[in-house]
């Protein structure tokens, strides 16, 4: 348990120091080094902690304490859960965070010191929250850190807050994920109402023992799934992720590719033992995953912003993982999560390197960069191959497992769609590579290779992206070391699965080579030929517009109705009462003419009246 605590305390201490000591924050570089030291400690501790789980020789361990004592209901306990799943994920998060923070040192070097300090404060905060999320031993604590990573994402997307687009994108990201979190929160409530606990171990035991009603379980899990869909940018909540690219590129690599967006999938893998009790929900998750994978890949086809291509690609790959969860292959999903973290973080970091050199995100303003930036180009190639799923990169193995599990789950149609998506994936990443690295014209400006602080993390990730497939045998061992070890049946995937996958990938790559390198045909002509479809893709299936419409009409509309009602009806009655009082008073005031003798007449009349009443009758 000590390594887990150290893992958390490293970034937390860094954040606390940078946050509470303004001079340190304003100094910039010292704050950065402190944050890097904190995450390095975390990476080391979590790495040491994860090794026995990878070897399959460690049992789950928990540490907990009383957080909120309650009466009349079970008290809420918080704590850490270290098992195969959380230990390996924590190591992954800490490693990528470390690489990204080192990379940022060079990438953000032109920022003002105070701004740099703020950046590293956010980074340390995010690292702490993400590690806390991974190591949570119950649903409520997961939710707590879940929201905190959301905050970290909000702050980092809006890092360049003086740009209106950055502020907008940050809001969009926060709101969209929070929409999913409404479901998450309600789901937790439902499960708590039914099972009386938030703790994973107790929840699994109670559900396994049949102590939880099926309908409540399905409802609760559906809510949690909504939360996961928001965080993992699943259709239709995917709208925030492409816009989130307004943040600095290292942030996109860390948060919006490797870690936070994968948290949704991580959560689904975590609760996978419960999902098997809700088969309809599994089907729904599968459908959403496949749909997301396909739609996002098609949207990536028409993007010219390199970061957005990668963002759509992330959405699509997360869809693959969700589909795997939905088809019962949590192990495959988790494997893909790990390899995807390597190659997608790598792709983002290389994209950052390109943007750093060219000064633009636009693919069409890049070209022939391979000559000036050989390391970046090689790394990009490694990442692209892994994303496309070419043998023997990491992506090949994990994608293959997903396809196999989908087929084994009895979804031939979904399988076909995912294979097609794999082809599209290879095409759009090939397109990005050829446009940026090779191509027919030179990039604008004077491109140059990035400094070592940037290339070194890229190189590390490139190696991992290439050889990460070697982790495949460890996945069952990791899962055997979780709190709910699955009963493994040896998966014997038909041999045509890897062949089909590879064929799709190769044809996608070949097609992109023909289109963008050989120029055998003009992509522009194709785009014109399929005009309406291309428009549909460019407008992103109008989902963004739908959200915009809901926001403007439903929220702002309702808001103004309520505001108006309050001012003119509820308050109108109050003001009307005031007005009536004035009106009546205006009539009555005439009686007070200020003449003493008129008042005395009234007194005399009253006296006579009283005398008459008292004596006269």
């Amino acid at each position, binding site marked *: 348990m000590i390594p887990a605590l150290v893992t958390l305390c490293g970034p937390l201490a860094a954040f606390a120091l940078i946050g509470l000591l303004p001079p340190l924050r304003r100094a910039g570089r010292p704050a950065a080094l402190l944050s890097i030291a904190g995450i390095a400690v975390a990476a080391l501790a979590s790495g040491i902690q994860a090794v026995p789980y990878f070897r399959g020789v460690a049992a789950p361990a928990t540490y907990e304490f*009383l*957080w*909120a*004592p*309650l*009466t*009349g*209901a079970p008290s809420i306990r918080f704590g850490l859960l270290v098992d195969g799943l959380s230990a390996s994920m924590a190591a992954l998060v800490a490693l990528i965070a470390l690489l990204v923070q080192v990379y940022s040192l060079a990438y953000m070097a032109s920022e003002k010191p105070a701004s740099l300090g703020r950046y590293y404060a956010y980074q340390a905060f995010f690292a702490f929250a993400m590690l806390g999320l991974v190591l949570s031993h119950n649903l*409520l604590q997961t*939710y*707590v*850190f*879940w*929201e*905190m990573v959301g*905050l970290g994402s*909000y702050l980092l997307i*809006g890092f360049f*807050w*003086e*740009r*209106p687009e*950055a*502020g*907008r994108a*940050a*809001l969009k990201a*926060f*709101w969209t994920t*929070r*929409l999913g979190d*409404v479901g998450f*929160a*309600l789901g937790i*409530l*439902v499960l*708590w*109402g039914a099972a009386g606990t938030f703790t994973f171990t107790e929840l699994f035991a109670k559900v396994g023992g049949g102590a939880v009603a099926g309908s409540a379980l399905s409802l609760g899990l559906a809510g949690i799934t909504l939360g996961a869909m928001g965080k993992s940018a699943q259709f239709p909540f995917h709208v925030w992720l492409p816009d989130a690219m307004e943040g600095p590129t290292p942030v996109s690599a860390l948060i919006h590719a490797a870690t936070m967006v994968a948290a949704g999938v991580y959560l689904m893998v975590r609760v996978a033992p419960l999902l098997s009790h809700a088969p309809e929900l599994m089907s729904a998750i599968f459908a959403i995953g496949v749909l997301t994978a396909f739609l996002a890949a098609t949207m990536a086809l028409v993007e010219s912003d390199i970061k957005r291509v990668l963002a759509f690609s992330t959405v699509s790959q997360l869809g693959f993982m969700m589909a795997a969860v939905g088809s019962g292959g949590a192990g495959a999903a988790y494997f893909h999560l790990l390899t995807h973290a390597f190659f997608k973080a790598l792709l983002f970091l290389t994209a950052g390197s390109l943007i750093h050199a060219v000064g633009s995100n636009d693919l069409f303003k890049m070209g022939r960069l391979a000559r000036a930036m050989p390391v970046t180009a090689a790394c990009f190639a490694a990442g692209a191959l892994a994303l496309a799923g070419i043998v023997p990169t990491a992506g090949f193995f994990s994608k293959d497992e997903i396809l196999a599990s989908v087929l084994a789950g009895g979804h031939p149609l979904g399988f076909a769609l995912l294979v097609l998506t794999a082809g599209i994936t290879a095409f759009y990443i090939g397109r990005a590579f050829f446009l940026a690295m090779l191509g027919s014209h030179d990039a604008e400006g004077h491109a140059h290779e990035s400094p070592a602080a940037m290339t070194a993390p890229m190189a590390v990730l490139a190696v991992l992206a290439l050889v990460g497939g070697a982790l495949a045998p460890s996945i069952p061992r990791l899962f055997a070391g979780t709190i709910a070890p699955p009963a493994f049946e040896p998966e014997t995937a038909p041999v045509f699965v890897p062949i089909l996958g590879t064929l799709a990938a190769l044809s996608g790559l070949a097609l992109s080579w023909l289109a963008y390198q050989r120029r055998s045909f003009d992509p522009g002509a194709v785009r014109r030929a399929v005009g309406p479809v291309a428009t549909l893709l460019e407008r992103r299936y109008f989902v963004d517009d739908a959200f915009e419409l809901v926001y403007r009409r439903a*929220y*702002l509309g*309702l*808001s*103004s*109705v*309520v*505001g*108006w009602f*309050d*001012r*003119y009806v*509820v*308050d*109108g009655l*109050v*003001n009307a009462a*005031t*007005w009536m009082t*004035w009106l009546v008073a205006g009539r009555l005031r005439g009686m007070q003419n200020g003449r003493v003798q008129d008042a005395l007449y009234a007194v005399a009349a009253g006296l006579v009246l009283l005398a008459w009443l008292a004596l006269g009758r």
Partner: protein
Amino acid sequence: MSVMPHLLSMTVLAPFAAALVLFVLPERAGRLIRTVSVLGAAVPLLTSILALRHYDAALRGFQFVEAYPLVPRLGLSWHLGVDGIAVPLLLLTAIIHGTAVFTSWTTTERAKEFYLFLALLVTGVYGVFVSLDLFVLFLFYELAVLPMYVLIGVWGSSMEIEGRGPFGSLFRKIGVGGKDYGAMKLTLYLLAGSAFILVGILLMWVAGAGPMGRPSFDYLALSHVTFSGGLGRSIFLLFYVGFGVLAGIWPFHTWSPDGHAAAPAAGSMMHAGVLMKLGAYGVLRLGFGLLPQAAQQLAWLVGLVAVINIVYGALGAGWQKDIKYLIAYSSVSHMGIVMLGLATLTSVGLAGSVYQMVAHGIMTALFFTLVNLVYHKSHRRDMTAMGGFARSMPGIATFFVIAGLSSLGLPGLAGFVAEFLVFLGAWTSAHPWWAIPGVVGAMITALYVLRAVRTIFLGPARPGDEAPPDAHGVEWVSLVALSSCLVLLGVWPRLLLDPLNAGVADLLARFGS
């Protein structure tokens, strides 16, 4: 128990003594006036921390009790005592009072009178929280409510609101949005509520005299009497409406935006931060505590109105352009969560409700400090005329985000603990669907709060604008103190939950279930 024999009397009388000293001080003695005010705030802060530390949660019940008969023939006595519910609220009052003194540090106009009225108001608040005699409680209640009229009327700020169409001349005539309008509206509303409360208390006094053998205003004595049927329900409704007005229940909430917008910083801090809690506390203590049967029968009404409050307030906030109105509407929404927690009649929900009183009190005090700082530095209240302020006031922007995050229920800050406990309570109550609008309300809060953050602080600075400066000097005190409290209560809820659970258990013990 016997930490100090007169802990509660000291708490109540310290600000009163400060008020008396202020009364005789000369107007010019600026430094001395502030020193006396700080002392008047520091003593209760100390005593309330002592009360929290030494309140024995295992023992439950009312502790630190003091009882001296005043008018035995009428059953009137100086009877003080706090239970697990009142102790956290005492601390809340002390925190807000202390920071309010620092927030108004720069008040130069009639500083003596300002601090005098502030101290009187606080005396009333402490008095309500510690009184176990309903008549004395009512007196303190009036003392808490009335000084606000002067505070707004003299030190407030105006921003006339244009009525649309045919309302234009009417709004001008009545002066909607002006400080006189706000002060008058607030005071009239709250006094109308007091009338309900007084009738309720007198009804109890009369009706309780029979079963008890002699008339008494004593809370503990009355709590042994059962007021059943129509009488109980009528008294409950009197208390609910009377105190509820102060708690901002729909549709009697409209004094809050106008009043809080017009009030000076310390005024709205005290009022939204503590006095609105006084209303909820009144409903809880007198309504739920003394009339459990009626409360059980009418919980549906309380819950329904609370749900309306949550959603209606949150939606109403989205329409506001004036930053102070925005915060005031968010208070209306958040007080709905307090009332929802009460209506759940579960121990988790009730604990969450009181937790929300504390959390929202601190959060809204921070908000009002911030918006007043923004107002004083930029001379604007209209958000649409702001933008890019984060460049020149990064500190204020940071604290504004912290307050906003607490209000939208971000974990790690006090608001989350409170809201989540209330929703847990709601989900396990007789009306589980209440949790849904509650959670949705938190979502809507995220919409308007973060939109406000973006409008005010983010984006490019408006061209030709003079950059408003950041906070400096004493102004930081309240910001740092209040946000530290938010974080502390967000990560370590046990601090308050131990006494709260004891208090709630006492209260619920009277609900036969």
